[in-house]
C-alpha cells in the first residue's frame, strides 16, 4: 500500500504552497491518476481522508482518472490498451501517450 506515502508527498507539496501564500485553509485539491500509474484511486481517497490534518483538515479531494493511451511513435496511429503494443503498419513498439500520471492539478485555498 504505497497510497499512504503518496498522500504524504501530496500533503507536503500542498502545505508548502499554502504556507507560502499564508493560506488559512485548503478547501479542495484536484488530482489526476492514470490507469497505468500503479495507484488505486479508491485507496488514495481513503488514505487522504485518514491523513488530512491542520490546514488540510477540511479539504475535499477530486480525483480525475485518465485511461491508458498508446500510439505509434512513427505514424501516430492509436493502439488500443490491451492489444499487442506494436504498430502493425510501421512495425514499431507503441509509446504510452498518457495514463501513467500521478498529478496534482489544482489547489483551492483561502488566503487573506
Amino acid at each position, binding site marked *: *500500500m*504505497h497510497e499512504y*506515502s*503518496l498522500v504524504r*508527498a*501530496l500533503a*507536503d*507539496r500542498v502545505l508548502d*504552497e499554502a504556507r507560502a*501564500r499564508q493560506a*488559512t485553509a485548503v*478547501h479542495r485539491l484536484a*488530482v489526476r491518476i492514470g490507469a*497505468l*500509474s*500503479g*495507484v488505486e484511486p479508491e485507496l488514495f481517497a481513503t488514505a487522504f481522508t485518514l491523513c488530512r490534518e491542520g490546514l488540510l483538515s477540511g479539504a475535499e479531494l477530486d480525483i480525475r482518472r485518465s485511461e491508458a493511451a*498508446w500510439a505509434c511513435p512513427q505514424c501516430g496511429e492509436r493502439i488500443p490498451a*490491451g*492489444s*499487442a*503494443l*506494436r504498430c502493425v503498419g510501421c512495425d514499431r*513498439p*507503441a*509509446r*504510452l501517450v498518457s495514463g*501513467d*500520471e*500521478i*498529478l*496534482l*492539478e*489544482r*489547489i*483551492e*485555498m*483561502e*488566503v*487573506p
Partner: protein
Amino acid sequence: MCDTCGCGDMRIVSLEVQDRILAANDRTAAHNREHFVERGVFAVNLMGSPGSGKTAVLEATARALGARSRLGAIAGDLETDRDAERLRAAGVPAASITTGSACHLDAEMVHRALHGFPWRELDYLFVENVGNLVCPAVYDLGQAVNVVALSVTEGEDKPLKYPVMFRKADLVLLTKVDLLPHLELRIPELEEALGRVMPQPALLRVSARTGEGVGGWVSWLETRRRGLGRAMIAATGEGVRRETP
C-alpha cells in the same frame, strides 16, 4: 483581503499546479542516477514477487560475473537482513534496507543506503527491491534498467494482472526454468501476454540452480552497461578516461 472593498474577508484562490506528486522522489532519483552515471556504475532495479528468485538470480550472477566485474547489492527487506547475508556469502558486498511496513523502496532510501557503502568502486549495483509486483513499480530509484524476475510457477497471465510493473520492465527474467518439466506453463502464452503490456517485450529464461541461461543474462547486462559507457563518454570527460584506461 477582499479585493473589491478591502473589508478583511478571506478569499478563495484556485491555483493551477500540474505537478507530479512524486516530484521530490524523482529529484532524488535523478540525483542518484547522476552519481551512478558519473562513476560508471550500472544500477539495476531488480523487482518481482516474494519468492520469485531475485536473490538466487543475484547469487548466480555473482558466480558468472563476479570474477571479471565488481558487483555490489542493496537489498530491501521488510524485516530481516537475510537477503544481504546470502549475497555477502556469495562474495557480493551487500547492504540491507529494512523497510519495516513499507512495501517498496524509494529514491531517498537508496540514497541513504549509499552512504557508507562502497558503491563508487562498483561496475554493477543491484538494488533488490521488496518482493511485491505493485508498489515498487511506482518509484524511480535512479536505476539504469528495471528487471523483473518472474518464476515459472507464477502463471502465464501474471503480466496482464500487473501491467504497471511489466510496462516498466526493460527485461523479464523467467526464473526457475529447471522446474519446467514438472509444470504446464505455456511460454508462448506468457510471451503473448507480455506483448500486451510491454512495448518491447524481452524475456530471458534462467535457472539459478543449474546455471541455464545465466550466460545470456550476464551478456545482456554487459551489453547494456557498454551502452551506458557510451552515454558517459558523450556526457563527461571522466567517462572517456574510464573507458580507455
